[in-house]
């Protein structure tokens, strides 16, 4: 039989053909670009990463000055993106779950408020929301010299929110270690309790024990260290507040916009998940005499999570990617820093490639983690 009549061989041929075409196209584009860059004498390559950046960045989670390299400037940008995405995702989950559950409330008022929140927030473009929060911030709050001071150690002005934080103390390191230790112990207790319950059927109050250990251990360490309570209170010096923790209007506006917009979508996903678990499941659980908390934790939530997680993953990715809108309101995220770098070095191809690489890395890591979690909570068929 000639090979073109054999469907298996034909399939292999098509695969090779497609692969070659894609390869050829890639070669054509890359080659063409290189030739054109050469013709115009535009520099290429990544040597610029080691050159002095010579521009300042407004918010720097790590030490940075204009004398540092472009590479370090980009790391600062990436950390800023990471910071806003991480805090954003956590807040967004909390608000999303509360609103989603409120949406299902039997209380008419509560469910209507949740409905309005969802409908309004998910239908206003997120860029518009960012402009709104940003303008609201700098238009409605006074300058630093007339800053609002609602409670001790908290100042709100059009330069941001400054708040007092515990002054740095050597004990802090140990408190954090105690916290981590608490979490680890809680995890072990959970495993042990599950095992004991499987064997003997005896229940153990895992939740409250864990809370006690996780919060109690750091507290004990703090007391042993002599309960250091000195606070680092921000004070007006020159043009602005110094000391304490300062959050800029750009960061707050970006965080608010992203969280409020995305949480509306999360709320809908949560509602869909809970509603998808049929009422019969709850009734069946009640009829075998499970406690209310057990019905939620052992029957409803595991089934709902399975439905909620995939859309939740995509909302987390959306939030991360939307954080690149930061440039519109001047938060120095990765795109903003990379743009400046592109502009100063003229190396747009390398710059855009770095931007794509950065977002791809963030998104893929979120995906990998969520896929792992999804697999874990998936229906286990026996």
């Amino acid at each position, binding site marked *: 039989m000639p090979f073109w009549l054999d469907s298996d061989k034909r399939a292999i041929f098509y695969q090779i053909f497609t692969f070659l075409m894609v390869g050829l196209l890639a070669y054509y*584009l*890359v080659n*063409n*670009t290189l030739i*054109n*860059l050469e*013709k*115009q*004498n*535009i*520099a290429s390559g990544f040597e610029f990463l080691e050159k002095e950046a*010579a*521009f*300042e*960045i*407004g918010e720097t989670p790590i030490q940075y*000055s*204009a*004398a540092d390299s472009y590479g370090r400037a980009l790391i600062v940008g990436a950390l800023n993106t990471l910071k806003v995405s991480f805090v954003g995702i956590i807040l967004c989950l909390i608000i999303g779950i509360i609103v989603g559950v409120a949406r299902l409330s039997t209380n008419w008022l509560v469910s209507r408020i949740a409905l309005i929140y969802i409908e309004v927030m998910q239908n206003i473009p997120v*860029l518009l929301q960012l*402009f709104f929060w*940003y*303008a609201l911030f*700098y*238009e409605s709050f006074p*300058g630093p010299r007339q800053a609002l001071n609602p409670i001790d150690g908290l100042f709100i002005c*059009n*330069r941001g929110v400054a708040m007092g934080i515990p002054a740095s103390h050597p004990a802090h390191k140990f408190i954090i270690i105690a916290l981590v230790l608490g979490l680890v112990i809680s995890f072990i207790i959970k495993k042990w309790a599950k095992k004991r319950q499987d064997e003997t059927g005896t229940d153990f109050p895992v939740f409250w024990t864990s809370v006690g250990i996780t919060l109690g251990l750091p507290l004990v360490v703090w007391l042993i260290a002599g309960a250091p309570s000195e606070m680092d209170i921000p004070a007006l*010096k*020159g*043009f*602005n507040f110094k000391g304490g923790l300062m959050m800029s*209007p*750009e960061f707050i506006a970006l965080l608010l916009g992203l969280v409020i917009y995305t949480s509306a979508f999360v709320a809908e996903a949560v509602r869909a998940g809970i509603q998808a678990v049929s009422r019969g499941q709850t009734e069946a659980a009640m009829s075998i005499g499970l406690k209310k908390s057990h019905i939620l934790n052992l029957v409803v939530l595991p089934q709902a999570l399975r439905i909620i997680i995939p859309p939740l993953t995509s909302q987390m990715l959306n939030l991360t*990617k939307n954080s*690149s*809108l930061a*440039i*519109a*309101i*001047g938060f*120095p995220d990765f*795109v*903003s820093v990379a*743009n*400046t770098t*592109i*502009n*100063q*070095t*003229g*190396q*747009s*191809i390398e710059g*855009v*490639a770095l*931007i*794509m690489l950065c*977002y791809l890395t963030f998104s893929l890591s979120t995906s990998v983690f969520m896929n792992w979690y999804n697999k874990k909570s998936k229906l286990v068929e026996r």
Partner: protein
Amino acid sequence: MKVVKLFVVFLATLAMTTAAMAGTLDEVKKRGMIKVGVNGSVFGFGMPDDKGVWKGLDVDTGRAVSAAVFGDPDKVEFIALTGVQRLPALQSGEIDVLCRNTTQTLTRETKAGLNFAQPNYYDGQGFLVPKKLGVKSAKELDGATVCVLPGTTTEMNAADYFRANNMKWKPVVIENTAELNNAFFAGRCDCLTSDASQLAANRSVAPNPADYELLPEIISKEPLAPVVRHGDDQWYDIVNWTVMALIQAEEFGITSKNVDQMLKSNNPGIKRFLGVTPGMGTQLGLSDKWAYNIVKMVGNYGEIFEKNIGPKTPLALERGLNALWTEGGLMYAAPVR
């Protein structure tokens, strides 16, 4: 969204076909239109008026190129670009010439693959502050929050200046000029830094312009010039000599009003310039009427200065460095011969 836009620029750069490398003049003639990148939101340099007509010194420079090439100043498509977008747009061939108060620097001429023509405005960077701040010198700005446009030489000059004077500062970097102005007027920053001409333009759109003042320090040199891509010498010559012609016309005393009488002039220099004695325009690949068309349709440098940014406009800028060399300024055109 931003990422998408950048991605498009990226693709456009990738797809830079050989066509973009052919003679820009031929391509422009075939298209019947010059694509000029302009600012879009700086009054007096490049901004549409309330009827949507583009106005400004940079806009008129673009129109002069069109007059030289087509004998018609309006065969121009103006494309508004931000500081960040402008260089990639030119590199990728999206525009033919960039007239967008862009500072000539070594890196831009070499690594970015661009050529700068004769400057059409000599500027310098300054600081705009609210009067109520009570600051009288830029040296008092230690610890200040400074509003600045991204992707500009301004951003780097400010960093250099504060470093050199051992002062700390915090930049607030917003790409959109109007959005940056709003933030500054609302008090988000202690001062706004940019080229002095732009600060004058920004102040003119403030809710109450009298509340703001320019600090005396000028911390940099900013020769603002039209830009073209490397690798097309003919097109570079046309743009370069268009600016020269604007300056030369003022030096000769030729204006849009008297250009027709000047055709009868006995001065051999003027005769060559206006094409009465043929030979100059054709060397550029244009008609010998090129300079006549520029002056007749757009005006000389002095005219477009007065019209757009001069003392009678809201910007009220003095000629200063931008006066003719014969009057103590820097505007100096090489001989047309």
